[in-house]
């Protein structure tokens, strides 16, 4: 699978420089955010930015002592993980149905579902708010979970469709020849094989839900305040608390990085599998 070129070209040092530049381009803003999170107010508000300074942990400590950052991370985690799981499962089922069963209109339906992704979330924000208010679902986890699952589904279905494509038909047919019915084939043979795809889908959905802001503003209250929403608190009329904001931003990104690092292998394989095999 991994075919890598092994060419000893004379351009080698040039390429190394390019790679370094690319990495700097990618990482510099993140690096800058990181060091800013360790600075004090005075150090941030100067015309000459500094790289060497005495670091302070005050910004991070204040996140948990003055604000309930921990509780908010928990809220985000609950909402994101449940909606990601729902999206992945529903997506897997629908993806399987759409790719393995050749019924009339299956391609049109698939295209239609994918096209839903083009819908701007803003457009439905107020109608959804009205609807959920009518159903008394405001400030509940359910509201956000429903919304995030729905918005993640088009991509989830599409990715899983890619997985259940050509490559796995062989396995399914082999299993059916061996005597399983379709359902058993699905459970015992296919599901394990699409594990990487499922994990990739889960991560993407989790990420979207975790990072989402607009619906979080409308549909949450004090019980379901999410982490991304909390970051807006650092922007006050008088000043932007850059230190706290960067600290909060880093904290809110760490869980995703941790999870992504852990399942990185699946992520790459999963995302691209879906892209390639459709």
């Amino acid at each position, binding site marked *: *699978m991994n075919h*890598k*070129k*092994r060419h000893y070209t004379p351009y080698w040092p040039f*390429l190394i420089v*390019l*790679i370094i530049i*690319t990495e700097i381009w*990618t*990482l510099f*803003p*993140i690096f*800058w*955010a990181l060091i800013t999170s360790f600075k004090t107010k005075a150090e941030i*508000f100067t*015309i*000459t*930015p500094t790289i060497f300074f005495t670091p302070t942990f005050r910004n991070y400590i204040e996140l948990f002592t003055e604000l309930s950052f921990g509780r908010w991370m928990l809220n985000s985690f609950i909402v994101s993980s449940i909606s990601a799981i*729902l999206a992945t499962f*529903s997506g897997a*089922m*629908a993806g399987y*149905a759409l790719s393995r*069963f050749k*019924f009339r209109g299956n391609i049109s339906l698939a*295209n239609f*579902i994918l*096209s*839903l992704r*083009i*819908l*701007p979330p*803003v*457009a*439905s924000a107020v*109608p*959804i708010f009205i*609807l959920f208010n009518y159903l008394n679902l405001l400030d509940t986890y359910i509201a956000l979970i429903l919304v995030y*699952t*729905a*918005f993640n*589904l*088009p991509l989830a*279905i599409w990715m899983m469709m890619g997985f259940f494509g050509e490559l796995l038909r062989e396995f399914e047919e082999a299993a059916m020849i061996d005597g399983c019915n379709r359902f058993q084939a699905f459970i015992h043979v296919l599901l394990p094989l699409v594990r990487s795809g499922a994990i990739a889908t889960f991560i993407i959905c989790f*990420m979207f839900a*975790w*990072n989402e*802001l*607009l619906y979080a503003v409308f549909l949450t209250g004090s019980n379901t305040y999410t982490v*991304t929403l909390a970051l*807006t608190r650092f922007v006050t009329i008088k000043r932007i608390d*850059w230190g706290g904001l960067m600290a909060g*931003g880093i904290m809110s*990104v760490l869980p995703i*990085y941790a999870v992504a*690092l852990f399942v*990185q292998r699946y992520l790459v394989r999963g*995302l691209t599998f879906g*892209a*390639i095999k459709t």
Partner: protein
Amino acid sequence: MKERYIIALLLTPSLFFLFSVILFPLAFSYYVSLTNFPLIEFRATSWVGLDNYIDVLTSPRFWYSMAFTGGFVTLAVTLEFLLGLGFALLFDREISGGRVLRSLMLMPMLMAPLVVSMIWKYLLHVDIGVVNYILRSFNLPAPSWFSTVPYAFFSVILIDVWQWTPFMFLILSAGLMSIPREPIEAALIDGATRYQVFRYITLPLLKPIIFIAIMLRAMDALKVFDILYITTRGGPGIATESLTYYIFNQALVRKSIGTSCATAVIAVFLLFSIFLVYLRFRPRS
């Protein structure tokens, strides 16, 4: 026969979510777009028929937001594609620590757009930002990146490109990895240059992937909102007002939900048509 039931069963949960959360509110928007619905009253106060649609379609501001969105998407996605392809080609070789380097490349797209916009707002801050500091030390002009017209466009595209090039990089990189090596090796042995290999073998084989990558990214770029909300707020004037921002403005600043829904309906119709047209060009591998 039984198959039908299985299909229905498999599709039900997804269809449930999609209909209740996406399609039903959209239908409700159709209704609201034909009324005057002030947010403060929280109900439709009067029936105005197609007035909202007429107002939107005859508003130069709406067409400008379409033009801006189109321009933004074209520029941003093109840049992301070119850079992504460049990075993918660059990293398509055995390097020690290659896997770590590659996963570091993905970091920007995992962050919340809110956080990314904030970081860049700080970096491009006219007084205390690093970029202007560096420019000043070289005696170059250090402009205001968000409130003067050519720079505002540039900054907004820059932020989007920084965040989403890794996405292109990821997909194109995997695409490159999945290309079979035999034709390439054969061509090289036969004396083809690297460039010829790229142009006549690699690129055509990548076409389906490129198509999908651009489609996915463009679909998201059309909805650009977070960046504008945090940095330029649609300004200076209305210079950086995207379609989504225009809809948001109608709904939550003017608090006129009727016109906002009318704009949304028009936008959905137009975007959907563009999508269908795009699908026609899908390469058959």
